[in-house]
């Protein structure tokens, strides 16, 4: 197998151009999917027998939580690759995952609280699922704080990568927390061994929203990583050419 195509991504000019070309497409596809998912979730999906209309929060809550865990996983993997093979673009990608990941971890917690009040009777409970997700938020914030607190970029890359990798242990804990412990949070609806436990009319808008969030995540990550690549560049002809073209 020829791996040279993969190696090109390690070169900042190649990555910068590639990301600039593809980020708008990912964002555009995510907006189309988002509109379809919102219409499906808010208008077309039937009312739930047990939870009435409030269950519709699922269409923003689950995709946010999914995006939080997905961006953490990608952040840790990119940081690990950057750490092991010393590829700077990978650290830029890892840094690009963190802000979106942190904000959607917060969104998943807040929308969960809004959902919890009418269905559980409480905004917050020290439940395994909720606490482990709160830890995801702390790892994201810690990662960003650590990066911004170290002046030397290479040292910041290495230290924050170690933190990201350590926090990866938490990701499966979040996912399996509802199975391992007695949790108020419901068990998974989608990723079950016996298939999704939702009727198709309710399920498809959720899957479309998850698709929208996936494309959205890639778009944001590429945009952020581009800015990070620019910040690291100290000159070079490619940069001169790119900036002349962007002006």
């Amino acid at each position, binding site marked *: 197998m020829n791996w040279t195509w993969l190696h090109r991504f390690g070169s900042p000019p190649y990555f910068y151009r590639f990301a600039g070309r593809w980020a708008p497409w990912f964002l555009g596809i995510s907006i189309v999917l988002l509109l379809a998912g919102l219409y499906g979730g808010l208008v077309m999906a039937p009312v739930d027998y047990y939870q009435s209309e409030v269950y*519709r*929060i699922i269409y923003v809550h689950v995709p946010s939580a999914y995006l939080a865990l997905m961006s953490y996983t990608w952040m840790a993997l990119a940081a690990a690759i950057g750490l092991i093979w010393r590829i700077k673009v990978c650290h830029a990608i890892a840094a690009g995952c963190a*802000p979106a990941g942190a904000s*959607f971890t917060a969104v998943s917690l807040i929308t969960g609280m*809004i959902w919890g009040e*009418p269905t559980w009777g409480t905004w917050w409970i020290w439940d395994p699922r909720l606490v482990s997700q709160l830890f995801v938020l702390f790892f994201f914030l810690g990662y960003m704080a650590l990066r911004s607190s170290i002046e030397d970029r290479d040292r910041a890359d290495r230290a924050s990568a170690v933190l990201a990798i350590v926090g990866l242990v938490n990701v499966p804990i979040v996912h399996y927390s509802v199975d391992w412990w007695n949790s108020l949070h419901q068990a998974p609806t989608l990723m079950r061994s016996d298939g999704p436990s939702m009727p198709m009319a309710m399920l498809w808008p959720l899957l479309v929203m998850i698709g929208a969030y996936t494309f959205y995540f890639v778009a944001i990550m590429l945009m952020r990583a581009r800015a990070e690549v620019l910040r690291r560049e100290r000159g070079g002809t490619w940069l001169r050419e790119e900036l002349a073209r962007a002006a």
Partner: protein
Amino acid sequence: MSEFLEMKGYGIYVWPAYVIALGALWLNVWIARRQLRTARAEARRRLAMLEQNP
């Protein structure tokens, strides 16, 4: 229409959740674009300085 907004009395929960989620989606795009612009401007300044004193 008002029936849709009321959501059988759950509108006060459903709509804020959607506003927060969609607001976060919009905010992330806005910040990412602004950061890219700032990074470009900074890179231009750095290049100009390099040209002045190489």
